[in-house]
């Protein structure tokens, strides 16, 4: 029995990480109807950059690299949107898909060139192996728990920005009606770049936490992208708390599936995703429609 509870607990904590993968994807899609196929590769890029920054600056813990990585990735996102992605936006939603697909190929090959095909892992220090004992013989790792806290806090912060600030109001208004937002004085190319910049902040955090949790290499991105897509779709488009729940449902399916057999881990996740897609095509928590 405690084994099952353990699987569910692990699922909740892993799901928070998936939700973090998905939050940026969801934000960008919500504001500019753009699917960023390179999202997973950008998470991998963040992990490699964290590794490089740690060596370069001699940080004792990889977590400290976030001080530099977060503003760096924000800038990368802002410039990427302003220079390459904005011109691709328009009636045709396929154009940004193709361009980000190309970007994905470029990032993967660039990382292969720069860091080789070796599998890497980030070092989080003692927190990686520490755990907290719970009643009934259960224990949770400090790192997964920290991931849960940080992801939830970051999603809460995003939610706060979207619903309580002037920037968030402009993001929602632009999502509703691009040209009318322009009439209100919203500089839409700048706003889009801000949205991608914010998404890259979640990518930076996701990259560091994922890199500490699991090993990664230059072509890990697409695997992570799948989890992000699945979390968004399970949760329902346009709802960040739904995305958090979606990530957790996906991860719980994986961790409980793994109890039957290790080969069931990924399969169980995908099967639950498919079942939800068939039963609730809008996702479990779609944004209320007027």
């Amino acid at each position, binding site marked *: 029995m405690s084994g099952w509870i353990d699987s569910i607990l692990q699922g909740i904590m892993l799901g928070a990480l998936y939700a973090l993968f998905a939050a940026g994807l969801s934000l960008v899609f919500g504001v500019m109807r753009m699917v960023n196929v390179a999202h997973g590769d950008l998470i991998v890029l963040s992990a490699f950059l964290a590794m490089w920054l740690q060596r370069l600056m001699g940080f004792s813990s990889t977590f400290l690299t976030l001080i530099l990585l977060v503003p760096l990735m924000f800038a990368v996102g802002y410039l990427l949107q302003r220079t390459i992605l904005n011109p691709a936006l328009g009636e045709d939603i396929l154009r940004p898909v193709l361009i980000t697909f190309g970007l994905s190929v470029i990032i993967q090959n660039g990382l292969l060139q720069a860091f080789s095909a070796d599998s890497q892992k980030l070092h989080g220090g003692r927190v990686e192996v520490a755990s907290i004992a719970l009643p009934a013989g259960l224990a949770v790792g400090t790192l997964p728990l920290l991931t849960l806290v940080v992801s939830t806090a970051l999603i809460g912060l995003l939610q706060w920005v979207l619903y309580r600030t002037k920037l968030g*109001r402009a993001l*929602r208004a632009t*999502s509703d009606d691009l*040209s009318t937002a322009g009439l*209100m*004085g919203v500089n839409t190319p700048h706003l889009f770049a801000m949205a991608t910049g914010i998404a890259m902040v979640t990518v930076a955090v996701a990259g560091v936490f994922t890199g500490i949790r699991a090993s990664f290499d230059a072509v890990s991105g697409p695997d992570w992208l799948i989890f992000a897509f699945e979390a968004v779709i399970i949760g329902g488009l346009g709802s960040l708390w739904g995305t958090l729940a979606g990530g957790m449902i996906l991860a719980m399916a994986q961790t409980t599936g793994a109890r039957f057999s290790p080969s069931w881990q990924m399969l169980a996740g995908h099967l639950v995703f498919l079942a939800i897609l068939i039963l609730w095509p809008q996702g479990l928590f779609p944004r209320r429609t007027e």
Partner: protein
Amino acid sequence: MSLLTVSGLNAYYGDFQALFEIDFEANAGEAIAVIGANGAGKSTFLNTIAGNVKSQGNAVRFDGEAICGLRPWQIVRRGIALVPEGRRLFSSLTVEENLLMGAYAKKNGAWPLAQIYELFPQLKLKCKQPSLSLSGGEQQMVAIGRALISNPRLLMCDELSLGLAPMVIHDIYETLAAIKDLGVTLIIVEQNVRQALAFADRVYCFQEGRVSLEGRARALKQEQVSRAYFGLDGAA
């Protein structure tokens, strides 16, 4: 004093030319109506001034400066606001959030919300509601309030009375008169010619992308207007 001067304005949608050599002038404090049949280019004209449709050269001058080629978000900062056709409220935003979007561009000099609620008392009671839960007339008030809150010197309204009941239209035009009394220059596009002639100081009639008639609203004869509107010689 001329606030908006348009001379020889051409506008295109791709290869299709929608406006031909438009000359137009709005003096500070005036209320001007633009009338014309469907497809005459009235909405295109407003959208060109607002920057949604591109124009070139010095064809549009606002307060002495050329504003051709500026983007919509730059033009609204100069003091021109548009109430778009069909209201175009932000559907996922509340009434109050919609109004606040109008003040987005202005760091200083925007109207306080209280002043908008003074003009449209109904809206205050419903300020937290989703914008599309309101009646058509109330939605139109939100659209006007949203444009007005940016404290424009020129307010352009596209088809305000579309789909609204006569009583509601009456109220909206009373409010417009109050806005005009505050010194705001108005350009309204209106399908209802009688309404337009009763409200405006001056009228421009558009026909197939050209100005077919211009004059003081009181001085125009019905026959003149009909001819300019329909383009038929001798039509009543």
